[in-house]
């Protein structure tokens, strides 16, 4: 059996009596006070998340951008210091190996840049293996897996920026969406990115493992009168589901192509070639048989991953990929892949929820959009 790793914050989670579980090999908090209360706190104030289980790979060398441009579906060659992009990694058949964030960051020396790839915890080993042969083609590029020597913390919610404002050496107010920079927190280097996985405004931070506890406590201290609460992976899942964001292993896997996942925006085909691009050009031109949709479900019974979606004549037209009670809407919501010809928004479908037939309406997602400030 594989050993379970701790994050630099695992002891703290345990000291708070968080409910813990093994998630992709890490001992992670699922919930502290409860999924619904943590979810609502994130939507109304701010949530603090230990996301140190996410894989962090650092690429250095003169042709690091070329290597990444070759393996990512999104263009990397034109990325400038401080930019973050959401991208996919596809295989030659266009199947999704992972969805990632790639950042271009200033080197600690102040000379030149390096790239940071944040990958899903469950895919980290697979992606490292996938990249090895390509690294051989770029001998001047080094890849370092810095996951275990760093920690990653997200702070998300309408109060997140206000809470973080006093904490960093450089001003964060002018940090744009999907922008990142290297700054300092109490003299310790910190990478901050205006990104997240909740549908809220906020930051994701990467710090050295030994500095994680202090940053975590400083955020809690700074936010104590603004309603910040620690949030576990349970509410992280309900938050991302309401925000319509895909989760690898649910909406994404190697059998899914980016277009049926409605992630065409994360594929730049124009004037470039990369792993999978030839297949992806054809996939883009061919209407997908399946399409990712949102579902608003009647009643209180949630349709979970694997539940079958039927049309009015009881023909199977799709499968649920994620489903849960939505704390914001106070009703069950879900995402599913269904037959494109039956995927019109507003259509009524039937879901087989463990033998019970439940009505649902196809809707667009996100299910929740934050109010702009």
């Amino acid at each position, binding site marked *: 059996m594989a050993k379970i790793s701790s994050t630099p914050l695992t002891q703290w989670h345990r000291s708070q009596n968080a409910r813990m579980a093994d998630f992709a090999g890490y001992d992670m908090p*699922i919930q502290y006070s409860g*999924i619904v209360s943590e979810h609502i706190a994130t939507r109304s104030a701010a949530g603090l998340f230990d996301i140190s289980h996410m894989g962090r790979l650092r690429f250095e060398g003169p042709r690091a951008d070329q290597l990444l441009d070759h393996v990512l579906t999104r263009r990397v060659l034109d990325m400038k210091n401080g930019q973050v992009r959401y991208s996919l990694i596809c295989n030659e058949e266009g199947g999704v190996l992972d969805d990632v964030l790639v950042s271009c960051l200033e080197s600690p020396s102040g000379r030149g840049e390096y790239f940071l790839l944040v990958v899903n915890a469950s895919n980290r080993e697979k992606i490292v293996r996938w990249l090895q042969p390509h690294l051989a083609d770029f001998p001047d590029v080094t890849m370092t897996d810095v996951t275990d020597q760093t920690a990653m913390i997200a702070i998300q919610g309408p109060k997140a920026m206000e809470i973080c404002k006093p904490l960093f050496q450089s001003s964060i107010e002018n940090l744009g969406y999907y922008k990142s920079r290297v700054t300092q927190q109490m003299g310790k280097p910190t990478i901050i990115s205006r990104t997240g996985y909740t549908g809220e405004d906020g930051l994701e931070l990467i710090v050295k493992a030994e500095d994680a506890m202090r940053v975590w406590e400083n955020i809690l201290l700074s936010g104590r009168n603004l309603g910040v609460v620690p949030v576990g992976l349970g509410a992280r899942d309900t938050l991302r589901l309401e925000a319509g964001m895909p989760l690898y292993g649910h909406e994404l896997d190697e059998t899914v192509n980016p277009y049926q996942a409605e992630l065409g925006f994360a594929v730049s085909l124009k004037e470039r070639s990369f792993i999978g691009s030839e297949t992806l050009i054809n996939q883009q031109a061919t209407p997908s048989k399946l399409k990712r949709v949102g579902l608003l479900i009647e009643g*209180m019974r*949630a349709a979970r991953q694997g539940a079958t979606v039927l049309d009015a004549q009881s023909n199977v037209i799709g499968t649920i990929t994620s489903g*849960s009670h939505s704390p914001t809407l106070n009703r069950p919501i879900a995402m599913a892949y269904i037959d494109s010809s039956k995927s019109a928004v507003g259509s009524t479908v039937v879901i087989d929820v463990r033998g019970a037939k439940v009505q649902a309406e196809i809707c667009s997602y996100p299910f929740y959009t934050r109010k702009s400030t």
Partner: protein
Amino acid sequence: MTIDPKALRYASTHEWVSVDSSGVGTVGISAFAVEELTDLVFMALPKVGVKVVAGEEFGEVESVKAVSPLYSPVSGEVVEVHASLPDQLEILGTDPYTQGWIMKVKLSAPSELDSLMDFEAYEKQCSGS
């Protein structure tokens, strides 16, 4: 009538039963189970008149995170269900033993009660998990 959790019999799957003098058992789930489940959103009850079997599923309870089957601690016929409970699942958080009862079963095999745990044994199981 108030049900005293110390006087109940418990299944390892966290259901309790309280049997009255006429041989009808009132069934619910323990405070420990409610605490473990958290954020309950749905409960499916059995129909009055159906036969339930000790150790077998009679309904389900759903939290935000997951669905959990409910197992009957006793065998017999369902004579009454707490029909309004699914609309006020918060009762389970405040009073899982009296107001939070789920169903009443006319016991067909009262000797099954002997294989259930008493409060002390059940507490021991919960603290060990």
